[in-house]
């Protein structure tokens, strides 16, 4: 690990300011992903800003009837929150399907959104990777790509976003609230928060230098059946090959976001109009632009079948 200076931030605004104009500064919250990457010298910050003491660990009702989840709320606390369990079951289920108990106790709401891909070539510093070293090439394309993305991919990168939580957030139309170094605030719909890889896969979100996430806001509950179905190589403590996060209403309408298939939580609203016709119709639209590799084309079928299982479960 490279040496770094360390400070404990005194406020969200101060944290943002401390990271302004310093591309080598990083915020640290749970640290479960950042420290992993720092040990491998994939992340090499020269300055860490500890944001754990900022009091952003509350879950509060909004005046609109939704929930404001502080950026520092731990994954365990969010999953265990009584209101989340009752009204946003999809979010609880997604969180509990991810990582281990130890990791969920540290990992935060904002950090979960910002975690980096688990592409093995991103982690292997001996291999080219456009995300780790822009312009060096993509080893996954033409390499072992069973776990990789099938849709929204580019010639520069086929990495997936690893988060389960983000899939639920996308289906629930969450909004990310931030503060910038100049003290201004903005609200970013989750749909716009993560980027597709394009020719700059190292830029993963729309956050600006120093911009700091303060909360994630959920709109009022939408009712329906909340289902998160994750397909993975082990029954527990593994990243998704494919996951489906869905809220299905009694009339068969609903919303669906897919994990394990793209550089960002994958949702196509037009596909949701086809849900009543069944999984094949909806999956056909969801993955209409899929560009799988030989090794991961099974994911296209797997999305359809997993979605079918979710629809069947919703009909119960």
């Amino acid at each position: 690990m490279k040496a770094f200076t360390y400070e404990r931030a005194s406020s969200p605004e101060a944290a943002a300011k401390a990271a302004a104009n310093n591309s080598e500064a990083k915020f640290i919250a749970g640290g479960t992903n950042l420290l992993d990457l720092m040990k491998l010298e994939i992340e090499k910050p020269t300055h860490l800003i500890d944001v754990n003491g900022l009091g952003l660990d509350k879950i509060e009702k909004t005046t609109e009837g939704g929930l404001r989840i502080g950026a520092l709320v731990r994954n365990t606390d969010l999953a265990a929150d009584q209101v989340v369990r009752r009204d946003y079951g999809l979010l609880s289920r997604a969180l509990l399907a991810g990582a281990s108990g130890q990791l969920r106790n540290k990992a935060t709401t904002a950090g979960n959104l910002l975690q980096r891909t688990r592409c093995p070539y991103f982690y292997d510093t001996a291999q080219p990777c456009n995300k780790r070293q822009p312009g060096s090439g993509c080893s996954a394309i033409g390499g072992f790509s069973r776990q990789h993305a099938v849709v929204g991919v580019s010639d520069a990168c086929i990495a997936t976003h690893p988060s389960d939580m983000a899939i639920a957030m996308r289906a629930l139309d969450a909004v990310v609230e931030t503060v910038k170094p100049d003290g201004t605030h903005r609200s970013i719909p989750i749909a716009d928060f993560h980027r597709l890889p394009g020719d700059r896969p190292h830029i993963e979100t729309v956050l600006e230098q120093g911009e700091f996430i303060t909360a994630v806001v959920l709109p009022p509950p939408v009712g329906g059946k909340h289902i998160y179905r994750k397909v993975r190589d082990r029954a527990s403590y593994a990243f998704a090959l494919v996951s489906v996060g869905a809220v299905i209403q009694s009339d068969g309408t609903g919303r669906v976001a897919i994990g394990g298939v793209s550089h960002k939580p994958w949702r196509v609203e037009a596909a949701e109009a086809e849900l009543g016709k069944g999984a094949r119709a909806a999956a056909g639209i969801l993955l209409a632009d899929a560009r799988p590799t030989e090794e991961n084309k099974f994911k296209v079928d797997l999305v359809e079948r997993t979605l079918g299982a979710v629809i069947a479960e919703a009909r119960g």
Partner: protein
Amino acid sequence: MQTPKQLEISRRDLLITSAATVAATSVAAPLAAAAQSSGNTMDLTTSVAFSVNGEQQTLVVDNRTTLLDALREHLHLTGTKKGCDHGQCGACTVIVDGRRINSCLTLAVMHDGDEITTIEGLGQPGNLHPMQAAFVKHDGFQCGYCTPGQICSSLAVLEEIKANIPSHVTENLTEQATVTSAEIRERMSGNICRCGAYSNILDAITEVAGVPA
């Protein structure tokens, strides 16, 4: 699949971007230096105070020191083990402010004021914690390397169920989670045992929890 032509483009891009990276680095360094001179405490070491097994400790550590290394190398509490050092195996599990965490994936300097419990704080030879005794009784280990993490984790698992924290296998999210074999298995998945003592570990935990295995 990637074509050879695309590979050629990638190599050219590599050269172009490498040059840009060199330029960016030379700009970033003065910025970092500026940030360092304008901030609060900008040393490569930091003082941190926390309690370990009820004893107050004050350390001045290199900022890079993980809680795991602080426990083992600075405080010589070597019961907590370093397995993968990447949060994948659970051998380093300790309890901080009542919660189990991977001590390898957190910096010591992030724990100012915290209360840390390690395996040494649970029980000692001749004065074993009931969970330690149950692991011995049920042969819940072979080589023993993962055992301190397994025991810290299993105690926290029972507390998490008591605190009504649900898990992936909890049937109904709006009901209190219960202690079952399935719940314990799921919740212990962050602790790997390469010797494969899982069934005996489960027996030990279920006995302490007071449920049939």
